[in-house]
């Protein structure tokens, strides 16, 4: 059930006749403007704060309590900056590129399953959709860089494109192994399958612990996702010590802000997808949140889904924030790779390993009928 249906369900209870199309737009507004953008903005603050902690500095602490409103101030600052476009720039593409990047990183939020009841669009090809839109980002980066007629930008953009397309293959292969094991592409169903295993139940616990191949593939996915988001140690497209600012050198003011925002949105998106397909989404060990029953209702409205949703969103966002924190942690831990090391890592390590893991995952699924390590263990111990 998607968020739009959820909203229209409430609407039906209240008895107002608002057309469904409006709810799908409303759900997009809720997820993007009330979740993705503020959280993306908050991440820019968080990154500075985390960086400061790693370097034993204080970090932003002036705007709001412990600097919490810093991103808001940054946003206003960038909003009010002069919009200066270099006269050599290819203006059409230059104006179009940020839209492409935003459509890629924010549009894919439609498929993120925040809870069993709240998902932007419950697509049957959810994972595929997220990956397909994710690759729009590389186009946006390359077009933006190309259109600015700046050498730094061009080098950064070329690097970005080569890197993002290369790492899309291990990313795709590791997602493919999940699909082989679970037999579904709908993110909603993928999460539903990762419940704590009960006797006779469908759940096989988190995919990352499903079998050893998926365990390794999780790290491949994470590495490839880092490269997809241009994050350290793969931040060659905007290597600030060599390329000024890389692909967004010529983008100033709000245009730069949009690029920065969509970069963080990309990080959050990949963390969300990793949580959903590998880390069990909103599932917790030992207990299935969806079977929680508080037995409260207001008139006809059953409050269970709402209470469950709040808990599920909490669990989901907790996992996402752990992953986002690891991404920030890595930035201050690992040095940047060289271009040839970057390509070697992808083509000579990640792709062969993920190939092998894909075959391994398929063989495991075949041999044990799709049962996970935990389920097999339960069988041996006679629990389920």
């Amino acid at each position, binding site marked *: 059930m998607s968020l739009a249906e959820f909203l229209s369900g409430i609407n039906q209870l209240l008895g107002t006749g608002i057309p469904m199309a409006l709810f799908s737009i409303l759900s997009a507004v809720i997820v993007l403007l009330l979740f993705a953008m503020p959280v993306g903005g908050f991440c820019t603050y968080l990154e500075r704060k985390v960086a400061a902690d790693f370097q034993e500095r204080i970090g932003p602490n002036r705007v709001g309590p412990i600097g919490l409103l810093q991103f808001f101030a940054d946003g206003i600052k960038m909003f009010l900056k002069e*919009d200066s476009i270099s006269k050599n720039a290819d203006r059409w593409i230059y104006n179009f590129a940020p839209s492409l990047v935003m459509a890629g990183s924010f549009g894919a939020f439609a498929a993120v399953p925040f809870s069993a009841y709240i998902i932007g669009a419950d697509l049957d090809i959810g994972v595929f959709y997220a990956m397909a839109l994710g690759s729009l980002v590389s186009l946006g980066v390359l077009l933006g860089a190309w259109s600015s007629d700046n050498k730094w930008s061009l080098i950064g953009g070329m690097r970005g494109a080569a890197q993002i397309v290369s790492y899309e293959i291990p990313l*795709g292969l590791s997602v493919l192994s999940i699909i082989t094991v679970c037999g579904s592409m709908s993110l909603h169903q993928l999460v539903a399958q990762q419940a704590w295993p009960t006797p006779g139940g469908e759940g096989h616990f988190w995919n990352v612990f499903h079998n050893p191949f998926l365990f390794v593939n999780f790290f491949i996915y994470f590495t490839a996702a880092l490269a997809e988001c241009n994050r350290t140690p793969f931040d060659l497209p905007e290597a600030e010590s060599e390329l000024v600012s890389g692909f967004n050198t010529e983008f100033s003011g*709000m*245009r730069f802000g949009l690029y920065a925002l969509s970069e963080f949105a990309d990080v959050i998106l990949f963390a969300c997808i990793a949580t959903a397909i590998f880390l069990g989404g909103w599932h917790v060990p030992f207990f299935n949140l969806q079977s929680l029953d508080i037995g409260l209702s207001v008139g006809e409205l059953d409050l269970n889904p709402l209470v469950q949703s709040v808990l599920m969103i909490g669990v989901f966002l907790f996992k996402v924030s752990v992953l986002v924190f690891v991404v920030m942690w890595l930035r201050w831990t690992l040095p940047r790779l060289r271009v*040839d090391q970057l390509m070697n890592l992808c083509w000579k390590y990640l792709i062969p390993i993920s190939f092998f893991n894909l075959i391994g995952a398929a063989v495991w699924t075949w041999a044990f009928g799709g049962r996970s390590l935990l389920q097999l263990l339960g069988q041996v111990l006679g629990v389920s």
Partner: protein
Amino acid sequence: MLGFGGLKLRSRCLLGFNFFQRHRVVTLETYGRNSGMLQEFGNALSFVLLAAILPPLILFIGKFFRPSFPHEGKLTTYECGELPEGSAYVMFNNRFYLVAIVFLVFDVEVALLFPVLLLFREAIDIGGNTAAQVFALAFAFLGVLFIGLVYEWKTGDIDWVRDAEDRRKHLETLEKAPQ
């Protein structure tokens, strides 16, 4: 729409292969009616459109608030404070092009494998040699591409930096290859 329908309804016709007996053609209308999936794609579309119109919208609203003092110096290309030296549209390392070509092959392969491996679980449940068929199909396909990867690796096409010795060897292998 057949592809999407195949994924949702597990229709038995996929990529021209009849894996299973029951053949079912899914059209746009039956697809939308059966699953409400058109509504879901409509939701997804509203996300993409909203995300795409946000940048122009924000920039348009900002137009009424931000200053605009264009100046010759500001509008030149940034090159670390120096006057820009020619255009940026220069000859570029064709490695990038090669990577893009190799990527295209692999990405199409991964995209084509998605629907096939999606059916793997179901094929196992059906029993018999259906799973073996799907497995053989998918991994024969993968195997061919993997041989391609090994070839690329051997000839050094996926090495970013190739030293003079390597390049000489590479040219030799190219000359030896049958025309």
